């Protein structure tokens, strides 16, 4: 399964080093494109890096020192889950580590006992439960197509996964919308001001802590888009194109919808998971279990 013993480790290290750069660039492009969609010039491409640099220059203002711990854990486990993913690890394990990191974020928000963080944390949790089933189904779907949970194996499979998993792919795009904190699902925090929750989960983080959150987001972007890659893994060029298109689509959706409420988020995410996801997997399952043997 693992050809050269060091390849996974190398991949993981490359991810750990490069993902923030790539993620930051993605964020920069995102802001630029968004601005253009609004008829604005927008910030410089490297703006996200300036922002994070700036935040590290600032004072670390906290409500409670435990926040630092949660934020650091969030960052570390986000990096770990991404590194696991890029080293070809078990998808399920990656997902669990991913969830773990988010729980730390939520806990960080809870820790401050502030009304806005608190509501943000609750909403973040609602978001997590909204996308979690779909993300597990994504892993399961990949397994059904490639008979492996290992990213390393999936990525080497010559099967055009997306053709087998169209429903799951659409479901995953919804997960992506939620995870990229894009409208209509930017419930718990948003990149824009003017939200009823101020900044939701991130309200009571400042300076370096906020910077760490931002870096964690970058790690997250790269990981999430890495999953998109898996769907098209049989053709790397196509996969890159798919990532670009998918991301552009996300920006477009962000710019053409209003934020929905949590009920709607939960309902639509579960509905998609419960219909498209299940039907897609069901058909596959049927084919695999009943037709093939």
């Amino acid at each position, binding site marked *: 399964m693992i050809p050269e013993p060091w390849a996974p480790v190398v991949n993981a290290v490359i991810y750990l080093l490069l993902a923030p750069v790539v993620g930051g660039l993605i964020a920069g492009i995102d802001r630029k494109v968004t601005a253009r969609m609004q008829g604005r010039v927008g910030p410089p491409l490297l703006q996200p890096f300036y922002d994070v640099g700036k935040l590290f220059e600032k*004072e*670390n*203002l*906290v*409500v*409670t*020192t*435990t926040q*630092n*711990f949660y934020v*650091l854990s969030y960052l*570390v*486990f986000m990096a*770990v889950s991404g590194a*696991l993913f890029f080293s070809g*690890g*078990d998808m*399920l*394990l990656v997902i*669990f*580590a991913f*969830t*773990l990191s988010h*729980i730390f974020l*939520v*806990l960080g*928000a*809870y*820790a401050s*006992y*502030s*009304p*806005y*963080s*608190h509501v943000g*944390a*609750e909403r973040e*949790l*609602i978001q*997590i*439960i*909204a996308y*979690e*089933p779909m993300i*597990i*189904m994504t892993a*399961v779907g990949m*397994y*059904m197509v490639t008979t492996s*949970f290992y990213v390393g194996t999936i990525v080497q499979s010559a099967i055009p996964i997306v053709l087998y998993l169209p429903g799951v792919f659409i479901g995953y795009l919804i997960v992506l919308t939620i995870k990229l904190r894009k409208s209509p699902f930017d419930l718990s925090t948003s990149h824009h001001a003017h939200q009823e929750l*101020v900044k939701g989960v991130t*309200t009571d983080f*400042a300076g370096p802590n906020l910077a760490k959150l931002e870096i964690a987001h970058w790690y997250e972007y790269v990981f999430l888009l890495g999953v998109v890659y898996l769907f098209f893994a049989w053709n790397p060029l196509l996969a890159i194109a798919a990532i670009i298109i998918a991301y552009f689509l996300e920006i477009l959706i962000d710019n053409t919808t209003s934020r929905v409420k949590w*009920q709607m988020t939960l309902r639509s995410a579960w509905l998609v*998971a419960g219909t498209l*996801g*299940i039907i897609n*997997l*069901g058909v596959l399952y049927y084919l695999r*279990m009943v037709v093939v043997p």
Partner: protein
Amino acid sequence: MQIVQLLIYLILFPLIAAVFLLFAKKSVERSWIVKISALAIGVVSLYLLVAGFDKGLITYTISGRIFDLAMLVIELVIAVYLLWLGLRHRKYSVVILVLIQAALLLWFEATYGHTIVELPNNLFFDQFSIIMALIIGIIGSLICVYALGYMETYHEHHKDIADRRGMFFFWMFVFLSAMFGLVFSNNLMWILFFWEITTFCSFILIGYSQTAEATNNAFLALAMNMLGGVAFVAALIYITTIDPSGRLLDLGALINSGYAVAIVPAVLICFAGLTKAAQMPFSSWLVGAMVAPTPVSALLHSSTMVKAGVYIIVRFAPVLTGTTEGMMIAMVGGVTFLLTSCMAISQSNAKKVLAYSTIANLGLVVACAGVGTYNLMWVAILLIIFHAIAKSLLFLCVGTVEHRIGSRDIEDMGGLIERMPKLAIMMFIGMAGMFLAPFGMIISKWAAIEAFIQAPFGLIFIIILAFGGSATLFFWSKWMGKIISVMRHQENLESSIKSEKWTVLWILTGLVVVVALIFPLISSALIEPFIMQIYGHTTRLAEANITIMLLMMGLLIIMPFSMLFQSKTPKMAPPYMGGMTTEGGMRYTGSAGVSRNLVLSNYYLRNYFGEERLFMPGTLACWGLILIAFIMVVGVVL
């Protein structure tokens, strides 16, 4: 020492201790008896592990005609007592059930009493029994020790409740004895006997406070468990009608006798298991049982007695594998898991949350056992272990907190990290054990997904797991969030907690972590041989993944130390309040000049996940599934 002696010792010793406790009037005496017996039981269970883990299945013969008789007598005495109680409290459903069961038993004894030959193997023992024995022996005795302190405070708080602690500990130890009996018995008649004893203990202990609510809930639990009991008796009758010699009353023999013979009793007994494990149509009794003192909830209603329900289903899993009946039972478990996980979201009573979570996890075990492939069995057993430890820790933590803050409502546990830091950390670990990687339950969930995907119709369960799992995530996280939120100006309430409680809590906390660390060892030493012996092949987790899990665990353990290396003391500021001035941390002057305290409660989403919404559909669905299973069985009979 011979293993059989250990088994008998484990069954009888608690009984003896119980009798002593009944007569110990002073609390010092009681305290010593409990502690010493707990130690003795714990040590012997451990010794059993050392002595027996490599032995495989062993059976023993206890020449037991006299036992049988004694059992019958005790059962009848209990029946009479219950009849009397039932009539007194006008619980006619109980009366009817008692009558039916007693009638069936008597008729059974009359008809087959003479035809049944003495079974060669009354007692048996394999790795699964060791696991169960360890849970009962270690966790059970820890809880008993904990109960010493707990009951003392309990009676200080509730002056109106009659202090019947002697009786309390008596039944606790009787229960331990019955549990050991249950897991060591190979004779179905014996199993039934111990089964009924646990039901009875549970009934008595739920009703401990003798309030109206407690009594009602005790009767509810009794009625539902008796329903299972009736099914159990029916199974025995069916078995003996097939083979009047009663050779099939041997558990092992029955299981090995094949689908045609075993499926009917299997379904009946599994039905009994469902009632005991509080699966969906019967889930309400366990929720109601939360009125019992917390050690009871921890012992009977999460880590052991309800586990007897799934224990028996796991035992019968080989019969169920691949059958529609098995599928139906698994579905009951699945539906229960999904719905009770969701319902837990809507609860703010900590014990109810724990109860729902318990039901959910038992549901998962049932689902695994019902489908019954070898890797699912592996998962089922793993689940039983992890759940027992983490859940008993949580129950005991909640009990302790309740005594300090006078409430078992999660909303009142805000800022526990400030008020009771150590306890909060324990609860944190306990909860992490329930739903976070890389702790126990998530390992099981992971393995379950990987196992289900290879099982027939496993997809259904994966989907259930995906949705139910996320619901689990929600209610645990928000509770966790509650206890770790830092509200300033809180005083520490921890100092008055007794040292014996601390010991128990620390041990359990340690167990949660340690077992997650050494589970590969447990798996290879106990679970895998057991599965191997039944199925001929077994599961193993990939090495690489285990390493990664261990690394994550290591990280998790190190992370908190990062707090020691904060370079500068950061500047503190009050939370963002829209610019409002807060005094003393959490007060502010709001509209109309009213001074308000900041209150932050969790979400309960009652409109979506409330009991009112989900209970009925779940009950109907599960009755439907059970009915299908029964219809199939009737088909077999005819």
